[in-house]
């Protein structure tokens, strides 16, 4: 860069403007404005950062660096496991990229009107998918949502244990563990794990019954489960929990809710899940986002850590607006006395998700759900025809299938390496986290996987196994 040039991001990086401002203040130089910072607090060695780049150079450098990434657009990917490749309508991207909300901050309900309304519409549409009246503003991930929901249940019930099913994303479980304080601490929440039936992948009901007692604040399970299985004991689990005075927390992937019934129908008290599947790209993990919902009762609403947007009348008859609700109980309002904490989340994805849900409508959700069911079951059938390959838990899976390679003598790692050479990203390796499943991988099949994709995968797998 030419020395002395003003910087394009800083309108006042012009010497004579600065002089004028200093004159107005009556200061000799800018340095004198830092008088509060003692000399011995100041930087010991000057900043050593890479050289400053013009936009032209920046574009070139970062475009080249990014080109070292391989994409799921140019490759055929079967990775899911918490973040899924679904079709994102272009209108969603167009909306979510609008500069207006990109750069806004909290103003007044009148100046934030459009954004607040969009957020309210997000909550409203999630509410319809879930058949629940109370939906908080999004939290940072499904695991975060589950962690908060468990803490909510602990506060509601004044109990300090929670039952969690074993067939859960190990990353999500780790997040939950970090939300439950360690044993050394006074408010420690102990986690009781419940296994799954090795044949069906569903919750081991005997173990569940044995683990639920009056110390348990909540049971947490997912439909579909991490292993793709559509858990069919929901009603029974909720009944057992209710009998023990515990809350039932269900985790769902909302893209399934055009074909799967809402968790409230089988007794869920609190529902959590992802919002990424509702129109958000992968963003290398940056698409992650979660929600918390429940019945609209004080028992629940008074324990949410999230912000809320409520519809409201305005001073003008017949007009409505939208404003924050229950703000006082958040950590912004009560500091350490607030409900857990709040802060930056993924509200931009609420904009994406509301656009997505409105575009989809009831029929869109039904069609995409049916298509995923068809594609996943068809893929399961095709892959299990490959000698040595076994697809587990085939009765009633949604979009993830557990593909076992024990019969091939190959490891998932070796197979995935061979697939990669063919431009295919194989499923997530389960062999470390779920040793009981042997050499298995979790293949995610969504509406985007066409017949020829599955055929291509099958051919590549056969070739990989033959090696």
């Amino acid at each position, binding site marked *: 860069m030419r020395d002395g040039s003003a910087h394009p991001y800083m309108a006042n990086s012009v010497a004579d403007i600065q002089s004028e401002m200093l004159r107005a203040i009556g200061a000799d130089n800018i340095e004198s404005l830092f008088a509060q910072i003692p000399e011995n607090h100041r930087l010991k060695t000057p900043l050593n950062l890479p050289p*400053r780049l013009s936009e032209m150079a920046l574009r070139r450098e970062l475009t080249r660096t990014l080109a070292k990434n391989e994409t799921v657009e140019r490759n055929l990917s079967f990775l899911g496991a918490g973040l899924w490749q679904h079709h994102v309508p272009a209108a969603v991207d167009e909306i979510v990229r609008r500069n207006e909300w990109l750069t806004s901050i909290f103003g007044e309900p009148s100046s934030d009107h459009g954004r607040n309304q969009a957020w309210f519409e997000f909550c409203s549409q999630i509410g319809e998918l879930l058949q629940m009246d109370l939906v908080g503003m999004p939290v940072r991930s499904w695991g975060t949502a589950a962690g908060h929901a468990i803490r909510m249940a602990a506060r509601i019930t004044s109990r300090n244990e929670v039952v969690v099913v074993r067939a859960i994303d190990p990353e999500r479980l780790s997040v939950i563990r970090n939300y439950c304080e360690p044993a050394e601490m006074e408010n420690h929440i102990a986690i009781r794990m419940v296994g799954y039936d090795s044949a069906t992948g569903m919750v081991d009901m005997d173990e569940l019954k044995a683990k639920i007692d009056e110390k348990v604040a909540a049971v947490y399970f997912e439909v579909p489960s991490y292993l793709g299985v559509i858990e069919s004991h929901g009603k029974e689990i909720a009944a057992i929990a209710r009998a023990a005075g515990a809350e039932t927390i269900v985790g769902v992937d909302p893209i399934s809710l055009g074909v799967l019934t809402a968790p409230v129908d089988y007794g869920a008290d609190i529902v959590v899940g992802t919002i990424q599947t509702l129109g958000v790209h992968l963003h290398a993990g940056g698409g992650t986002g979660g929600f918390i919902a429940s019945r609209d009762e004080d028992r629940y609403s008074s324990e949410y850590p999230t912000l809320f947007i409520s519809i409201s009348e305005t001073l003008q008859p017949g007009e409505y607006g939208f404003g924050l609700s229950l703000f006082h109980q958040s950590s912004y309002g009560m500091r350490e006395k607030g409900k857990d904490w709040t802060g930056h989340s993924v509200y931009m994805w609420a904009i994406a998700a509301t656009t997505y849900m409105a575009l989809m409508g009831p029929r869109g959700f039904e069609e995409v759900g049916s298509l995923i069911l068809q594609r996943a079951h068809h893929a399961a059938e095709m892959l299990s025809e490959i000698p040595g390959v076994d697809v587990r838990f085939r009765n009633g899976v949604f979009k993830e299938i557990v593909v076992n390679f024990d019969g091939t003598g190959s490891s998932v790692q070796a197979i995935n390496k061979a697939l990669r050479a063919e431009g295919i990203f194989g499923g997530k390796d389960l062999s470390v986290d779920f040793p009981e499943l042997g050499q298995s991988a979790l293949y995610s099949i969504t509406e985007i996987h066409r017949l020829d994709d599955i055929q291509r995968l099958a051919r590549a797998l056969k070739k990989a196994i033959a090696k």
Partner: protein
Amino acid sequence: WNEPVIMEMGHPGRRGVLFEAPEAAVARSVPDPIAMIPEGLRRRNPPALPEMSEPEVLYHYLRLSQQTLGMMGMSIFGTCTMKYNAQINEALAWRPEVTHVHPLQHEDTLQGALEIVHEMDLALRELSGMDQFVFQAGGGAEAAYINAVVTRAYHASRGELKQRDEIITTIQTHPSSAATAAAAGFKVITLMLGENGYPTLDSLKAALSERTAGLMVNNPDDMGVYNPEIKEWTRLVHEAGGLCFYDHANFNGVMSKLRASELGFDACMFMLHKTFGAPKSGVGGPAVGAYGCSAKLAPFLPTPIVAKMDERYFLDFDRPQSVGKIREFWGNFQVILKAYAWVRAMGADGIAQAADISVLGNNYMEKGLLAIRGVTRSHPDATSPRLEMTRYSLEKLHEDTGVDVHDVLNRMTDFGIDAMWTSHEPWLVPEPFTPEAGEMYGKEDLDRWISVISRISDEAYSDPEKVKTSPHNQSIHRLKPGDTDDPKLRAMTWRAYKKKRG
């Protein structure tokens, strides 16, 4: 115009997205997909979502976007460091090499992303003196929670967690420090301000003990006041066996001026969506709280760490003392990318200049604002120039005219200036407000901002009703007071609204 809520729009049968029927072979294989669902789990009643065409949905949200003032006017919201979101960063972040990448891909296929994360780590190390950064936290508060969790793990590893259950913070430190410490199981001790605008050393000494797990503090605070004794603070906390965490939410006024490690901190946090130019989306995110710490604490960091060996980048999960995950995957990569692009576009000189301009702008505004009738400053006796913000009060204006700070906020928007920040709770200063000039806006914009406050002050003294009934030029009027918190009226979904009001 009045844009309806989308739940009222549309017509049965309209479609916004279509899907092809599956190929014949797939349909043959699974002719009835619903039959794959266990009987009781099939959806009976379709969700009552709107049924709309694609353009109907698109234009609805385009119109809503236009009804969001934000920076379309001018916004210098204190504590949030309103900053230019460079369009090149957005353009890069929406390339398929970012949007269409899965975080569980093999490292060989992620070298571009990992390189950028690692380079950002190095830049933040240079700015803070820390030894390792992680980007898993989806915001500043979550990074504070990482600190609480790492603090737990550190003391647990030394067998002291049971004993060390107190976190010390200050009343002008962001509420998220207190809240995350409490959520992590710690007891929170909050130090109040001394007469210089920051807590006294004595109050800290009184709080320290063998129960001290750590200190969580910002500096400067969000009144623009810098605690000049902070090195002594970190020394004393360490002496007591605690850890020191520096919330760098207010980094804009001190960046390039000091390093967290050189002040004695063990850990710190940067908000990439704020100080580093990535968008914050209405205190909304996706955001990144980059958490960095010294080598002493690094073993406890969440996994994975992005590391480099022999010119190859990899995800290091092999960290036995790690606390595991705070959030799934390894961070909001697109935000890291934008922040890294900002660092490269600014360079060390640009960053130093940004701090200078921010502090210059704030002091320039202070001169103008304090000349306005009804405007005073917190701690009027602390005469050193404030850093990048100043806490003001409209107490006088309120007493004189009955116009309060919310009236002023509303009235400002009529001039295309979005509401400014007041103060975090509790309001130590009555009727507070806190603009933060930042480095983006030009002098004429700052002058315009001051002149709007000046005009509103004039209005308050001459025609207070005009201010109290504002806004007059926005999409909607003020909300009816109380509606959004009244359990009988508040409705967080359209379903609830129909039940309560329908």
